[in-house]
């Protein structure tokens, strides 16, 4: 499975209730160091209930220009949340299931792209 297949996959909670689709995957670069860059590690997935289209960079809260584009894009992704890799129970071909009692974090990032 490649990451491209995962994007758009429906996400369900432990009771089978549909929460949305995978809109994005977040990585941290803290794996084994190499000459150019350390290995990336999958931190978790962004789940969006209305649209799995790209955030176009507006997941960063500091971006507010040009009006009204950020507002429109954030509205398309209203209700989206971030789940850690540890909270994902099953990563299937057709659906992703979360563990019971998963934590939904805010998908927003600060200006430099950090959580």
């Amino acid at each position, binding site marked *: 499975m490649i990451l*491209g297949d995962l*994007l758009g996959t429906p996400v369900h909670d432990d009771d089978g209730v549909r929460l949305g689709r995978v809109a994005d995957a977040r990585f941290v670069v803290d794996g084994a160091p190499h000459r150019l860059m350390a290995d990336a590690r999958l931190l978790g997935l962004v789940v969006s209930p209305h649209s799995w*289209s*790209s955030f*176009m*960079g507006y997941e*960063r809260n*500091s*971006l507010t*220009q*040009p*009006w009204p*584009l950020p507002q429109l894009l954030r509205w398309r992704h209203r209700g989206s949340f971030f789940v850690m890799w540890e909270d994902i129970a099953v990563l299937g071909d057709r659906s992703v299931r979360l563990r019971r009692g998963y934590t939904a974090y805010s998908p927003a990032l600060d*200006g*430099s*792209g950090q959580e």
Partner: protein
Amino acid sequence: MKRLLGVALGILTAIGGFVDIGDLVTNAVVGSRFGLSLIWVVVVGVVGICVFANMSGRVAAASGRATFEVIRERLGPRAGLANLSASFLINLMTVTAEIGGIALALQLASSVNYLLWIPLAAVAVWLVIWRVKFSIMENVTGLLGLTLIVFAVALFLLKPDWGNLASQAIPAVPAEETGATYWYFAIALFGAAMTPYEVFFFSSGAVEEGWKIKDLIQSRINVLVGFPLGGLLSVAIAGCAAVVLLPAGISVTSLSQVILPVAEGAGKLGLAVVLLGIVAATFGAALETTLSSGYTLAQFFGWSWGKFRAPAQAARFHLAMIICLLVGLGVLATGVDPVLVTEYSVVFSAVALPLTYLPILIVANDPQYMGQHVNGRGVNVVAMVYLVVILVASLAAIPLMIVTGAGA
């Protein structure tokens, strides 16, 4: 002094490089059918291309990334690929139209059938791309393209009734035309002025020439002075057609009709100059569009690209351009009328424009790419107004094409 010369050269090549086969044909068609009643669209288009080129040039200088690198990064591979396919196909259509334009102009100069000129034109374009330095290529075709000023000269020599001509410049649908055709040609004229390849080429050229932030002022002057003066050339082309062809009831369907008013106003010498100008302008645009097809593909797929590298170091980039030229040749070899290809290419350019405009607008506002050089508030207001204009033109183009039978 050297800096001043650089600015002057930049402006002159921007003027000479502004006009291509799309501008030549569309302005003449519009002038011969609508007089100057659509001239306001040229103004809208020129301001638009200034806004767009200014943003993409700034993105290129501040982030070191050309247009399609930005699109790939910001839209992701899937949406980016849809975007690439549309932009690339329309660019290929423009390559075809420009090569056809070179051949048609050479036919007018030599009476040798244009189909025989086409292979020669394509090989010449390829040789220049393969061998000639970027700056020389830019400056020579730009300066030779300046000879198209003969359209303005001819307009004066035709001694038109200026008052009457000025009164035509008010937006109104002529009695013989319908509202639908009026708006269809408005979109064609807008697409001709704001062809996306100009922006691919402009931003990739910025990377080719290694622009830094300190070069931005010069590039801004080139754009803000050169493009409007180039737009004046477009107006002169439409003006000539409006003075000579409109009263005679000739609606332009061939390149010979585009230059007819110049022959009438400026005689044999004018004719010689205008043919040189058209060959230079279409040749320059053929180079730019062919390079643009290589740029877009290479930037999207992450191949090494650029004329600053030896062809062996950018093999896929050069191979892609050779294939594009061969495809253009193949299309023209079917005997399809290059003028018709041109008329379609400008309209489809308008259709595809939002695909490249929106990502550039978003990135031009992103401090992670731009640092302190993000769009100012004023630029954003104008840029958002243009986003709406571009979206409306893009959505209306195909329905209007169907309703009007492509403006027939």
